[in-house]
């Protein structure tokens, strides 16, 4: 494994490598952690996130399953009932759908159904989102389906450090966690390296990634780098944008989001998921309910269109980009600052 070799350890790691390291460390720390899924064994997963785990921990701990997502999650439920802590991999966002019945009818409800007697300390890893040129069924933003189900935590990292820290937290959680991995960030690097402090990140806390005063961009997962780029570009327009990375969609960090919006007075929610029925609607409603008197403009959204995910040669038109974000920021009623004499 690259993460254990000293020479490579000092080099910045990719998000995929940070995830591998998190799985490795969790398995080493807790013998009840079992990794299972399609191609996670010999191959190391189609994105190589489970690379080397079978070799290190044996087939019982990291196992290739039959190709059946409902069966994978359903058997993981039984394993959790017997005290194991399964980490299942769904190969792609859209291939996780056969497992929805197990997720919705059992995983999400088992604690509630049994008054806490049976808990489901399961982690369900789902590579999600577009931007990698995937053909149909390989680029869905499926988070809204999960958010519609009470009883599961929904977490998504946008940085390499969070990929490690949040996955460790997800595996340690006594509640089921749908861990959404932004595919197009798998090969991204930042300043995290495996020999840096490997901290567990708390689930349920958003992070302000960029301080600003003009407006808040609220985003998560694959759209964070896009928002950071948009915030840089916005300086030329005279806007100093704050960027909030949600990290955890459930539990939702109202405090961090509202504190930011109260400071800036304007908010745009950015995500790849379709706008109608997407998380942005809920987030906009929560901000409006809590920060109405601080708002200078309606909360706006930049989301994927309300269309089935496009073929790869057209996906750039669908995904929120810097220009669309800036165009939306421009619609945040800046003129009212003059009419009310409240110019910056």
């Amino acid at each position, binding site marked *: 494994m690259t993460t254990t070799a000293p020479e490579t350890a000092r080099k910045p790691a990719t998000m995929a490598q940070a995830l591998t390291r998190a799985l490795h460390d969790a398995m080493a720390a807790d013998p009840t952690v079992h990794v299972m899924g399609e191609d996670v064994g010999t191959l190391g997963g189609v994105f190589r996130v489970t690379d080397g785990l079978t070799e290190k921990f044996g087939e019982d701990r990291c196992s290739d399953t*039959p190709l059946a997502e*409902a*069966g994978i999650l*359903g058997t993981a439920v039984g394993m959790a009932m*017997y005290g194991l802590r399964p980490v299942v991999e769904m190969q792609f966002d859209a291939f996780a759908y056969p497992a929805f019945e197990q997720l919705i009818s059992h995983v999400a409800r088992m*604690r509630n*159904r049994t008054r806490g007697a049976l808990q489901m300390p399961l982690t369900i890893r789902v590579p999600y989102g577009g931007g990698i040129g995937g053909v149909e069924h390989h680029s869905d933003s499926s988070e809204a389906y999960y958010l519609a189900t009470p009883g599961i935590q929904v977490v998504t990292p946008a940085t390499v450090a969070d990929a490690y820290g949040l996955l460790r937290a997800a595996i340690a959680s006594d509640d089921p966690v749908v861990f959404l991995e932004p595919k197009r960030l798998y090969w991204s690097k930042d300043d995290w390296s495996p020999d840096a402090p490997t901290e567990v990140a708390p689930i349920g806390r958003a992070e302000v990634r960029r301080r600003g005063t003009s407006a808040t961009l609220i985003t998560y997962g694959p759209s964070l780098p896009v928002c950071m780029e948009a915030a840089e570009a916005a300086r030329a327009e005279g806007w100093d944008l704050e960027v909030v990375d949600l990290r955890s969609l*459930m539990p939702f960090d109202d405090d961090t989001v509202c504190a930011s919006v109260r400071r800036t007075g304007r908010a745009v929610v950015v995500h790849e998921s379709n706008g109608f029925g997407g998380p942005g609607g809920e987030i906009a409603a929560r901000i409006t309910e809590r920060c109405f008197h601080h708002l200078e403009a309606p909360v706006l959204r930049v989301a994927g269109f309300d269309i089935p995910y496009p073929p790869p040669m057209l996906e750039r038109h669908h995904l929120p980009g810097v220009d669309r974000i800036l165009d939306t920021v421009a619609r945040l009623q800046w003129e009212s600052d003059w009419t009310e004499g409240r110019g910056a």
Partner: protein
Amino acid sequence: MTVLEQPGSSRNKSDLPGPPPAWRPRVDPAPLLPDAEPYRLLGTDAAPRLDPGLLKRLYAQLVRGRRYNAQATALTRQGRLAVYPSSTGQEACQVAAALALEDRDWLFPSYRDTLAAVARGLDPVQALTLLRGDWHTGYDPHEHRIAPLCTPLATQLPHAVGLAHAARLKGDDVVALAMVGDGGTSEGDFHEALNFAAVWQAPVVFLVQNNGFAISVPLAKQTAAPSLAHKAVGYGMPGRLVDGNDAPAMHKVLTEAVERARSGGGPTLVEAVTYRIEAHTNADDATRYRTDSEVETWRAHDPIALLERELADRDLLTDEFVHATRDGAEELAAALRDRMNADPQLDPMDLFTHVFAEQTSQLREQAAQLRAELDAEAAGHPENATGADRSAQEARP
């Protein structure tokens, strides 16, 4: 245009390469095949050799089970149960499933299998909690190793496989027995569970109670398989076909399957041929889809009557035994009736307690809202109660 070579044409077929040697049939299917007829013991030459103690134990449980079914159905008429899917006529399957297991084993029941749970030792009131509607599961599954009653069909089967697999990984000789109906065998989870179980050689027994109907749909519209037991062969596990109304036969087949699983032999699929004497639930009208005469043919093959005849033939059906058995069943029914006649004590705040290990800020806010509504209600301002609360009050008899 090329004309395909026909079989028997002049071309030498040995020129065509077959599959490479890596391919071969993995398992000889012959030993996995179920018998042509359901396995029986009662009324056969083997019956006189059956252990009298076991027969009496089974009989007492069947009588108790029949009485339990009647009492639970009566409780629906009295408004004390929201719904009850009866296992009347299927008591031999229910009782045998419970008796085939050791204490350390796990039972995975469906909503029609509360009797199996009760026969395993679960408090009947706790078994009926789901059907009374005061909570979804009325018991700690660890206490008797009984998974929550499962309503979405066949979805508990993969749980049984996973639990059995986990037990084996931990080195425990624990077996899981999962119950499903004939309709449930059409579900995808049935297929996936059997496939995983066979691939993992998990110590699981799948018991299909083929009671003839999935609510109203007869088996002929459910499957074209030779029998449900035959489905086992496709997964590489043995299928057993057994008379589900023959209690000793059920007990023997399930016990063998459990011991086979325990000793590392892998999973077994058991199809019990039985009949749902009552409608699907008290809310169903079975006269719309089947005739009384059909039901009568099955009443003539009643599990209690079959066993009674064997006991009588062997002079085991003494007055003393019959009375003691009946008294025990009546005691169970009376206690169940009395306890179900008391209103369950419900705390609406429990709704928020077990959603997550740690309550989210959103749930804390919502819990506070409900708390305030309850306080207002308690302070004598019922107009402040929510519509849902009012309708719940109105629904209470």
